[in-house]
């Protein structure tokens, strides 16, 4: 667990971290993202004390990091940088084993570690252990960079834009690999990037920073659905557009709210007049408490209606109804199975909430696919 408590860092008059507090759980993959100069790299480097905050405290597993020497602390935390920084004068094996050697592990153990780690990324020991960094491709070099960070089995690994300099294909491969390794070895990873694709792909939690402050700390899903700031929205950009609004699930999401109702005591002629005015061929009949009773159609009144009678006498109670919270599928099934042109949607108190017609269904589905539709 990593905790920042009111961490501030100033360089002269410039504040790079402004009273930052957050907690990262063990085993979490946290991506810190934001525009350049937002303080994301400073945040990362404060964890292993390459930068000393003032004021403020960083705790790892509840322990103030300043209680042990920076050198010891850094040996217990993995560190991967964008420029890779494999030592060119050392072989792949020597590079990977550099921290175990600093920690004075016996040579046999170092060898085992190198063997196991190379196997983890499918780079055969025989082929790669004795190569020098300049004999490897960029992607292979950064794989070794990651392995070097893992060599002494640190529970926490810090990664500062590790894949920023790699081509997109190699980058994606490495992202998958790191995610896989993180899950397998249950590491806590703090990963800095300015690439939202990368953040969304890797993160359990994203910390979005700007001007030394945290704008939002949330899961990728939450950030996509509720970006806390327009800057975050801009960063998410095409991801928000790509994200389709979730398909309507409940009956009410398919309904049209404007429903023409008529009180049960209204007379036949009056109701016909109303239908003509609204250009509809039926009305929803309600009682004095506005509860649904049924429908009345113009054909029915024309066929056997008498002037001066209340519409309640010609009530059709076979009209399909659904509760507004019921599954939309139920409403659609009913609508499709019958010859009726609509389903009445009712509130819990049986008052009329709306009406689902073939048109309103098409509109709701259209909006789900392509966004707001003018109708």
């Amino acid at each position, binding site marked *: 667990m990593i905790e920042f408590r009111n961490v501030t860092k100033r360089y002269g008059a410039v504040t790079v971290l402004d009273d930052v507090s957050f907690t990262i759980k063990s085993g979490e993959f946290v991506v810190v993202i934001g525009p350049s100069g937002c303080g994301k790299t400073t945040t990362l480097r404060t964890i292993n004390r390459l930068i000393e905050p003032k004021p403020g405290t960083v705790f790892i597993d509840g322990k103030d990091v300043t209680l042990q020497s920076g050198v010891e602390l*850094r040996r217990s935390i993995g560190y991967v940088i964008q420029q890779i*920084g494999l*030592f060119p*004068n050392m072989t792949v094996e020597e590079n990977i084993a550099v921290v175990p050697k*600093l920690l004075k592990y016996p040579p046999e153990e170092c060898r085992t570690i190198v063997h196991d780690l190379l196997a983890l990324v499918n780079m055969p020991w025989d082929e790669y252990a004795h190569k*020098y960094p*300049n*004999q490897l491709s960029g992607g292979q070099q950064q794989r070794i960079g990651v392995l070097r960070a893992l060599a002494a089995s640190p529970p926490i690994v810090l990664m500062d834009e590790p894949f920023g300099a790699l081509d997109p294909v190699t980058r994606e491969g490495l992202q998958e690999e790191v995610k896989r390794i993180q899950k397998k070895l249950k590491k806590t990873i703090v990963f800095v990037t300015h690439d939202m694709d990368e953040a969304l792909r890797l993160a359990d939690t994203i910390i979005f920073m700007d001007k030394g402050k945290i704008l939002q700390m949330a899961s990728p899903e939450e950030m996509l659905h509720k970006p806390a700031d327009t800057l975050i929205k801009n960063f998410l950009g095409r991801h928000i557009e790509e994200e389709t609004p979730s398909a309507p699930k409940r009956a009410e999401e398919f309904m049209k709210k404007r429903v023409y109702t008529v009180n049960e005591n209204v007379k036949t002629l009056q109701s016909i007049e109303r239908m003509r005015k609204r250009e509809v061929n039926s009305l929803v009949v309600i009682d004095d408490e506005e509860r649904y009773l049924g429908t009345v159609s113009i054909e029915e009144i024309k066929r056997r209606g008498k002037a001066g009678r209340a519409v309640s006498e010609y009530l059709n109670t076979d009209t399909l109804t659904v509760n507004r919270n019921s599954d939309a599928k139920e409403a659609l099934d009913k609508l499709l199975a019958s010859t009726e042109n609509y389903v009445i949607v009712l509130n819990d108190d049986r008052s009329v909430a709306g009406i689902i017609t073939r048109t309103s269904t098409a509109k709701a589905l259209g909006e789900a696919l392509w966004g707001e539709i003018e109708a």
Partner: protein
Amino acid sequence: MNLTTLFLANWPAIARSLATHIMLVVVSVGLGTITAIPLGIVLTRHRRFAPAVLAVAGMIQTIPGLVMLGFALVLLGIGTVPALAVLTIYSILPILQNTYTGISEVSPAYTDAAKGIGMTAMQVLFKVELPLARETIISGIRISTVYIVSWATLAGMIGAGGMGDWIWTGLATYNTGYILIGAIPSALLAFAFSAALGGLQRLLTPRGLRRQP
């Protein structure tokens, strides 16, 4: 008297002079190296002093050798000690310059990575910076050595011996043979040192830094 007979007649003395000459070079470059490398390292840690220190060292380098020997003569008398003092001072600059440049040019990617994985300042220096700067530093020593082989001929003037003795005698007596007996081995010595240090440089360059065939 032709050169060969002159050489054969005097070879034990020539060999002694050559040995003295080599001693002057090795001791002064040795002293220069153990002064210049630590000083160069210190300068990379305190960069704001670097321009001033390197300027002073460069200025000393421009003082003519004879003038320096004159000073040394006045301050330290005649003999080996003042000669070594002067030669040592001259040997410092190229090594200092190359040590400073060599370490400064080590990419921050390596030093940052080294610090980030938990190396102490000393480990960063000895495991990363010096190995990566080694080629440049040795090249400084090589330049210095070649210089000092020729400057050391001046040391004969203040009684330090070496191949300079033969040259100065030759000049004083208009004897071309003596001049050549002093000059030719000096030139060959410069070549030999340069080649030896070049070999050492290649040998000590970490494999990963060598140009790929």
